[in-house]
């Protein structure tokens, strides 16, 4: 058989065919509202964020310090063992500069781009990152491997949400003493020459 020998189905329409009523359509606006239980681990995680702290869970079997915290270790398949506070500083694992919103609409000319990043949190096991935003920095000035710290909402404004951290901002060079910097280089980080390429 050859695809070319068949008359293939699939009738292409333009969005103007919808607007001009060339084809009939019907619309539906579902009301999909949910209330998700936070559970034990994320419940405490959020409660600690309200206090300006980041909390992780430790598994004594594999010795991982896990963030976001979880009540069972998915590798050892047993309950995790204890809570452990970790720092509100970390390292940029990767980042993006986003010019679109969640619904694929474009951000306006006066809306600055969003800078989502995966940030490996100091004090958690290596590679344990969370999704958050970068701020207080020009998109051109960000590199993979950059040291960052959390910028918190004021205590009275926190609600117990991931957004109690407004964003992470670069740690100024003088203050940037990473307890894990040496270990990270050893863990097969890319060399400095390639790091430069990740700049915009």
């Amino acid at each position: 058989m050859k695809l070319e020998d068949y008359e293939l189905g699939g009738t292409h329409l333009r969005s103007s065919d919808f607007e001009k009523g060339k084809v009939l359509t019907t619309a539906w606006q579902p009301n999909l509202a949910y209330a998700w239980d936070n559970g034990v681990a994320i419940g405490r995680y959020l409660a600690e964020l309200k206090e300006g702290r980041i909390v992780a869970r430790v598994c004594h079997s594999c010795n991982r310090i896990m963030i976001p915290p979880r009540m069972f270790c998915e590798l050892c398949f047993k309950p995790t063992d204890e809570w452990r506070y970790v720092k509100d500083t970390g390292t940029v694992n990767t980042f993006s500069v986003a010019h679109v919103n969640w619904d694929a609409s474009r951000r306006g000319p006066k809306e600055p781009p969003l800078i989502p990043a995966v940030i490996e949190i100091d004090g958690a096991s290596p590679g344990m990152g969370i999704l958050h935003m970068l701020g207080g920095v020009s998109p051109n000035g960000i590199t993979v491997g950059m040291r960052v710290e959390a910028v918190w909402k004021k205590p009275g404004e926190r609600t117990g949400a991931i957004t109690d951290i407004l964003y992470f901002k670069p740690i100024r060079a003088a203050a940037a003493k990473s307890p894990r910097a040496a270990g990270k280089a050893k863990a097969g980080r890319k060399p400095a020459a390639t790091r430069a390429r990740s700049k915009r």
Partner: protein
Amino acid sequence: MSISEKITKTTTPTYWEGEIPVNYIYTFGLAGEAFFRAIKDKGTFLATRCEECEVTFVPPKAYCDRCFEKLEKYVDVGTTGYVETYTVTFRNMDGSAKKLPRILAMVRIDGTDGGIIHYLQGIPFDEVAIGMPVQAILKPKAERVGGIEDIVGFGPPKR
């Protein structure tokens, strides 16, 4: 995991609210387009028939779901039928009481194997019966847009 490892202490139960903020625009498809165009423009129902399987589809299908052959010939089957089955609804979607009960019926269109689910109009709910003849009540032509709402419901057949 042993029973001693069971989680016994929990933090205050909390929850997080969110939504999926999407909406949909559906096309009616090849057969659906023909069906709803006919309601809108001609005020009648179209069907497709598979001669091989001896099945007449209302709403029409572009293919026979039994033998998988393509069905392209549309026939006008009119708007009369009979009540195949029905239910009487007393509650709204949100659980509140309806002011007046409504009868939702599956109407088998005469001469076909298909049916249309719609409300019965002008028939008291203590008089409705399975097998009762009915006819579609359509909106005035000027108000019809091409959709199931073009049918107001089914009522006693016109003489």
